[in-house]
């Protein structure tokens, strides 16, 4: 079966709020995960990655958390901006999760 799956289809937040997007994975997942952002009409764009020997990795305004106990991956976006509006998908071993559409309201 697929290695990554969907949690919520849509997340609406106010500009400036923090956003948390979740993803579950299965036992068949490999030890490397990526979060991709896909804006309307565009290809997936790399945001941040994490290996399974880490629990947390931070980028610019983004943090990925990996909970291997419950096989859960999350993407946190700090101070969400209108330009963050997109579909966010976790990715593992060639497979994309279904994605969460983040809508940022001014």
């Amino acid at each position, binding site marked *: 079966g697929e290695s990554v799956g969907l949690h919520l289809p849509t997340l609406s937040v106010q500009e400036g709020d923090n956003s948390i997007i979740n993803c579950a994975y299965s036992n068949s997942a490999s030890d490397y995960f990526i979060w991709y952002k*896909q804006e309307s009409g565009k*290809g*997936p*764009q*790399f945001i941040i990655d994490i290996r399974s020997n880490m629990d947390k990795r931070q980028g610019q305004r983004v943090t990925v958390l990996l909970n291997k106990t419950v096989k859960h991956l999350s993407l946190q976006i700090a101070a969400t901006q209108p330009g963050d509006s997109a579909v966010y998908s976790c990715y593992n071993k*060639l497979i*994309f*999760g279904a994605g969460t559409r983040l809508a940022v309201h001014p």
Partner: protein
Amino acid sequence: EPEVTQTPSHQVTQMGQEVILRCVPISNHLYFYWYRQILGQKVEFLVSFYNNEISEKSEIFDDQFSVERPDGSNFTLKIRSTKLEDSAMYFCASQTGGAVAEAFFGQGTRLTVV
């Protein structure tokens, strides 16, 4: 910044016709991929290509599909006899290494089969 380029951006073809989608991966990359995305659905893996051969393919990648790297720069996806359900965005991607490296995606080709 290096990028993956795909042509054409939009292709309309009649059902039953052959179509070739073209990609120019990033020049020093070794692994190449095709994905598709049907409107409103998630991005789905089709095929991966390394060292001039298919390394993995999904159930979607049946005998109607083929890939080729005809020269040192292009990577193509051919659909031999298009069906209505082949209408989708097709994304090409490339990466430097294998399992632990990000894939860089092109902007896609929108294929419309009529």
